[in-house]
C-alpha cells in the first residue's frame, strides 16, 4: 500500500534533514574552480555628483584582477535595471521612470548606491583594493523624508522629475466620497507614519557568476525568490544575454520576505564581470552592506478621514498618502504603495465610498519595494487605527463598531468600491472565534491585576482582509504589470511510479517540498516519500514567476493540481487500453485505475511502467511517457483575513511595552499542512510585532546616512520579546482556486501591527492618548507619558 500523506496532514518536513545537519546548500556555501572574489564599492554620501573614479592604485594592489565602474557599463552599452510595473496618474500620464544604472553614472542617490566592483583573487585582497579606489564626489544636499522631498526648494534627485514626484496616483470615486463627507454625522481624522523597515532575512544576499566560453553560457547562482524572472529581466533587458544562454540558480535561500524578489544590480554586474575577466566570481554581502542595499519596506506618511453616520456606520473613507520610493524605482517599487494599498482600504467593511491619493516620491534613501505584506499592512494599519479612533470619539465599543460595519458572510462575493471583489470570507466568524480564544471576557480582571502592579494594560483588535495569490495576469496588466503572474508545474512520473515535480515557485522556508508533495501524494495516490519537488533552477524547471505575495500554494499549487489531473487523464487512456474498456468507464481512486463496476484494476505503477515500455500501448493515438505540465493563471486574487487580538502591558516608569498575549484567528481557506500554516502565522505575526514595537529604519536628515545600519541599531524581535501566541484558523473556501486555498504567508504581518498599536493606545487612553506611531519604543512611550497628565499610579 502506498503511504499517502495528503491534504490536512502534518508530516514532518522533507527539507529539514539537510538544514538540521548543516548540509543546506546556500549560495555562500558553493565553491567553483578558480573562484575569484568581488566586492562592491558603495557611495558614502546620500546625494552627490560622481565626478570620476581613479582606479590606478586599486588596480596595482596585490591580487587585483579588475575594477569596473559605471563608465565600463556605459562603454558596453548595457541597459538600466528595469521596473516591472508602470503606474499612471488619474489623467493616464505614466509615472516618471528615470534610469537605474547597475553601477552609478554621473550621480549617486543614496548611501549604498554602487559605484564600482573590485575583483581580486581573495575577498581580503578585494577589500584592501577597494580602500585604494579614489572616488571624486561633489556632495549635494540630501533629502530623506517624503514631506521634505516634495517641498519647494528641496534637493532634486533627477532633472526631469519635478518635486521628486514619480507619480500622483489615485483610486476611487472622489466626488462620491466628498458628498458622503458632507452628510456625515461624525468625521474621524488621523495622521500617521508607517515606519520604514528593513527585511533582514538571516542569510545575507550573495551571488556567484560563471561564464563558460566553450558553450557561451552564463550561470548565476543567486539568493533569489524568482530565478526565472531574474533570467528574463537581467538577460533580456539589462545584459542582452539570450535566455537559452543564461542559467539562473537559486538553491537553498535563507529567508526572503520580499527582500530577495527583486532583480538587483549586483546580479547584473557580477554576471557581466564574469565574462569580462573569464573567471567565476563570488560576492557575499555583509549584514552592514545588506542594510544599505537590500530594498527597504513601508515608509508612508498618511492623512486619513473616516465619515460616519450617527449610528457609527461608515459612509466614506478618504486617504492621502506620501510613499517613499527611495533613490530609484526597484522591480515592483511603484506597485506596492498603490495597487497593493488602495484596493485594500475597504477592509472587511461595507464602506460604500473610498478615495485614495498616493504621491510616490523619490528620496535619497535605499529604494523601497515589497516587504512581507507589501502595501497591505500599510492599508490595514490606516483602516484599523481610524476605526478605533472613530469608536473612541463616538463612544461606541470597538468590537461593536466593527460588527456594525462588517460584510456579513452571506454577502459574499462582495464587490468593494476599490476594484477588488472578495470571493469568500467570514470576518464575523473570525472575530467571534478570536474573542473567545483571547478570553476577552476576563480582560477586566487582568487589567486590574496589572493596575495593582502599577502597569497599564490594553487590548487591541485588528479585523482585516488582504489580497494575495498574485496574480490574475489580465487584471494585473490593466494595473500596470509588465509581465504575467501565472505559475507552472511539471509532474514527471518515472517508469517505476515515483514522481518528480518541477515547479516555478521558490522554497525559502515555506515548506513547499512537503506541502506540494502532500498534494501529489493525495491526488495520485503515491507514497509521500516517493515525491520530490524541484525548484530554483532555470535549467531544470520549465518556467515560473517565483515566490512572493502568498502565491506559491494559491497559484503554483493550482498549476500542480492541474498537472496531476492531466496525469490521471492520460493514465485513464492507458488503463482503458490495457483493461480493454472504454475510457469513460475507467475510474481512478487511491492510486488505482479500475473499470467501473468490475474488479479489473491497474495500479499507478503499472500504468507508469506501461507508458515507458509501450509494447502493449495505443501508440497510434497516444504518446509514450507519463509527464504532464500545466500553467495556471488565477481568475482573481484570494482574500485571506481574520481577527487578531493583542494584549499589552505598559510600564509607565520606563515606557516599556510588553506584549503579554496574542491571539489570531485567520481564514486562509483550505489548509494543506496545519503545522506549516501555524509556523507561517507565527513568523508573520512576529514580523508585524517587530514593526509595531521595535523596528525602525532611521536616516539622518541632513547627510542621508542610515543611522540604523546594523543589528545593534535596528532592533529585531528576539525570543524573549514574545509570549506564546494562540493561532487558529476559521476557514471559508476560496471559490476560484482548485483546492479552495487562499495563502497564508503574509496574513500575520498584515494583521498584527494594528492590533498591537490599538492595544498600546487602549492601555494609555485614560491619559488622553489617541495615537502612537510605530515603533512604540520605550523612549517614545516614556516621552508621551511625560507630556500626558499622568495620574498617580494605582498602587
Amino acid at each position: 500500500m502506498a503511504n499517502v500523506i495528503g491534504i490536512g496532514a502534518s508530516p514532518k518536513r522533507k527539507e529539514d534533514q539537510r538544514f538540521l545537519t548543516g548540509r543546506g546548500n546556500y549560495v555562500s556555501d558553493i565553491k567553483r574552480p578558480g573562484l575569484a572574489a568581488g566586492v562592491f564599492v558603495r557611495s558614502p554620501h546620500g546625494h552627490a555628483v560622481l565626478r570620476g573614479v581613479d582606479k590606478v592604485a586599486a588596480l596595482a594592489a596585490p591580487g587585483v584582477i579588475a575594477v569596473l565602474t559605471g563608465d565600463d557599463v556605459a562603454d558596453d552599452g548595457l541597459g538600466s535595471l528595469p521596473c516591472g510595473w508602470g503606474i499612471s496618474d488619474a489623467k493616464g500620464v505614466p509615472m516618471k521612470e528615470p534610469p537605474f544604472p547597475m553601477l552609478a553614472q554621473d550621480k549617486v542617490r543614496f548611501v549604498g548606491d554602487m559605484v564600482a566592483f573590485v575583483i581580486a583573487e581573495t575577498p581580503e585582497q578585494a577589500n584592501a583594493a577597494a580602500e585604494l579606489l579614489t572616488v571624486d564626489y561633489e556632495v549635494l544636499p540630501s533629502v530623506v523624508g517624503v514631506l521634505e522631498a516634495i517641498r519647494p526648494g528641496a534637493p532634486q534627485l533627477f532633472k526631469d522629475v519635478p518635486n521628486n514626484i514619480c507619480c500622483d496616483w489615485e483610486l476611487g470615486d472622489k466626488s462620491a466620497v466628498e458628498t458622503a463627507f458632507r452628510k456625515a454625522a461624525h468625521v474621524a481624522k488621523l495622521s500617521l507614519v508607517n515606519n520604514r523597515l528593513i527585511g533582514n532575512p538571516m542569510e545575507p544576499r550573495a551571488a556567484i557568476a560563471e561564464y563558460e566560453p566553450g558553450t557561451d553560457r552564463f550561470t548565476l547562482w543567486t539568493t533569489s525568490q524568482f530565478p526565472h524572472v531574474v533570467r528574463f529581466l537581467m538577460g533580456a533587458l539589462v545584459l542582452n544575454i539570450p535566455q537559452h544562454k543564461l542559467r539562473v540558480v537559486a538553491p537553498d535561500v535563507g529567508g526572503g520576505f520580499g527582500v530577495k524578489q527583486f532583480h538587483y544590480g549586483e546580479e547584473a554586474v557580477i554576471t557581466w564581470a564574469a565574462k569580462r575577466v573569464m573567471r567565476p566570481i563570488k560576492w557575499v554581502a555583509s549584514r552592514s552592506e545588506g542594510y544599505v542595499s537590500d530594498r527597504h519596506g513601508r515608509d508612508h506618511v498618511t492623512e486619513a478621514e473616516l465619515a460616519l453616520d450617527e449610528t457609527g456606520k461608515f459612509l466614506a473613507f478618504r486617504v492621502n498618502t506620501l510613499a517613499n520610493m527611495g533613490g530609484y524605482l526597484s522591480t515592483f517599487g511603484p506597485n506596492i504603495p498603490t495597487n497593493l494599498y488602495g484596493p485594500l482600504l475597504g477592509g472587511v467593511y461595507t464602506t460604500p465610498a473610498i478615495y485614495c491619493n498616493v504621491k510616490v516620491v523619490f528620496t535619497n534613501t535605499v529604494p523601497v519595494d515589497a516587504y512581507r505584506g507589501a502595501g497591505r499592512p500599510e492599508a490595514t494599519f490606516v483602516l484599523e487605527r481610524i476605526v478605533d479612533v472613530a469608536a473612541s470619539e463616538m463612544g461606541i465599543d470597538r468590537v461593536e463598531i466593527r460588527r456594525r460595519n462588517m460584510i456579513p458572510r452571506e454577502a459574499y462575493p462582495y464587490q468593494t468600491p476599490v476594484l477588488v471583489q472578495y470571493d469568500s470570507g467570514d470576518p464575523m466568524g473570525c472575530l467571534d472565534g478570536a474573542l473567545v480564544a483571547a478570553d476577552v471576557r476576563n480582560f477586566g480582571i487582568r487589567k486590574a491585576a496589572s493596575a495593582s502592579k502599577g502597569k497599564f494594560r490594553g487590548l487591541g483588535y485588528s479585523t482585516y482582509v488582504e489580497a494575495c495569490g498574485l496574480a490574475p495576469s489580465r487584471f494585473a496588466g490593466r494595473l500596470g504589470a509588465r509581465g504575467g503572474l501565472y505559475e507552472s508545474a511539471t509532474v514527471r512520473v518515472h517508469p517505476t511510479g515515483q514522481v518528480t515535480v518541477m515547479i516555478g515557485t521558490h522554497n525559502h522556508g515555506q515548506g513547499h517540498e512537503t506541502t506540494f508533495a502532500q498534494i501529489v501524494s493525495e491526488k495520485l495516490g503515491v507514497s509521500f516519500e516517493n515525491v520530490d519537488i524541484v525548484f530554483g533552477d532555470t535549467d531544470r524547471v520549465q518556467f515560473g514567476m517565483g515566490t512572493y505575495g502568498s502565491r506559491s500554494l494559491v497559484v503554483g499549487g493550482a498549476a500542480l493540481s492541474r498537472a496531476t489531473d492531466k496525469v490521471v487523464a492520460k493514465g485513464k487512456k492507458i488503463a482503458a487500453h490495457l483493461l480493454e474498456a472504454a475510457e469513460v468507464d475507467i475510474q481512478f481512486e487511491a492510486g488505482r485505475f479500475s473499470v467501473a463496476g468490475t474488479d479489473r484494476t491497474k495500479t499507478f505503477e503499472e500504468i507508469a511502467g506501461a507508458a515507458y515500455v509501450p509494447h502493449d500501448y495505443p501508440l497510434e493515438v497516444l504518446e509514450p511517457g507519463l509527464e504532464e505540465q500545466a500553467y495556471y493563471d488565477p481568475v482573481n486574487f484570494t482574500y485571506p483575513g481574520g481577527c487578531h487580538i493583542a494584549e499589552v502591558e505598559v510600564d509607565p516608569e520606563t515606557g516599556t511595552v510588553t506584549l503579554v498575549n496574542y491571539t489570531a484567528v485567520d481564514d486562509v481557506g483550505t489548509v494543506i499542512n496545519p503545522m506549516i500554516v501555524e509556523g507561517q502565522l507565527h513568523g508573520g505575526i512576529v514580523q508585524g510585532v517587530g514593526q509595531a514595537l521595535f523596528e525602525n529604519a532611521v536616516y539622518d536628515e541632513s547627510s542621508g546616512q542610515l543611522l540604523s545600519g546594523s543589528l545593534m541599531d535596528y532592533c529585531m524581535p528576539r525570543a524573549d520579546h514574545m509570549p506564546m501566541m494562540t493561532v487558529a484558523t476559521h476557514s471559508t473556501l476560496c471559490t476560484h482556486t482548485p483546492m479552495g486555498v487562499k495563502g497564508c504567508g503574509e496574513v500575520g504581518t498584515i494583521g498584527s501591527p494594528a492590533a498591537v498599536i490599538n492595544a498600546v493606545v487602549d492601555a494609555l487612553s485614560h491619559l488622553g492618548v489617541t495615537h502612537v506611531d510605530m515603533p512604540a519604543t520605550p523612549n517614545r512611550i516614556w516621552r508621551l507619558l511625560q507630556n500626558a497628565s499622568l495620574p498617580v499610579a494605582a498602587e
Partner: protein
Amino acid sequence: MQISFILNGRPTTVDVEPATLVAELLRERLSLTGTHIGCDTSQCGACVVHLNGLPVKSCTLLAPALMGATLLTIEGLQGAPGSNRMHPMQEAFREHHGLQCGFCTPGMLMTAVALAAEKPNLTEADVRHGLEGNICRCTGYQNIVVSVMAGAAAMNAGNGE
C-alpha cells in the same frame, strides 16, 4: 601558523593566518559550511559552535584560540559519523517545526544543546532568555522554544538511562 585541535572528534592540524576567524576557517578551509555567517556584529548567532563544550560565536573567535582545544560544529552534532541518526535536539526541532529557512538553525541548535546541558529543567523563560543571542526571522521563535524544551527533556531522559 600551525594550529592543532580536535574538530568534531578528530585531531586536526591547519596552517592559517593568525587573523583568520574560526567561522571563516571552518567554511572556507575545512568545507564545513553548516556554520553560517549572518552578520558582522556578533548579533545573529548563526555561527555558534562549541569550544571546549561552551557555546561561542565563531565569527568573533580567532583561529589561534583553537590551539589544543576541542571544537564541535553542527556537522559533528549528530550520532555516529556517517550515520543519519540525529541528536535529540535536532529530532526535536524536526518534530516541532522549529525551523523554516534553515539559516539560523545550526546556531540555534548549538546554543540550545548548550543551554540544555547547562540547566536540567529549563523553563520557557530560561529558553527565551537563553536564545537572546540567536536571531530567527522566520519562525517567530514559538516553535523553536517548544523544540528546545522538548529536546532538552529528551537529552536529560537520555542521560538518565
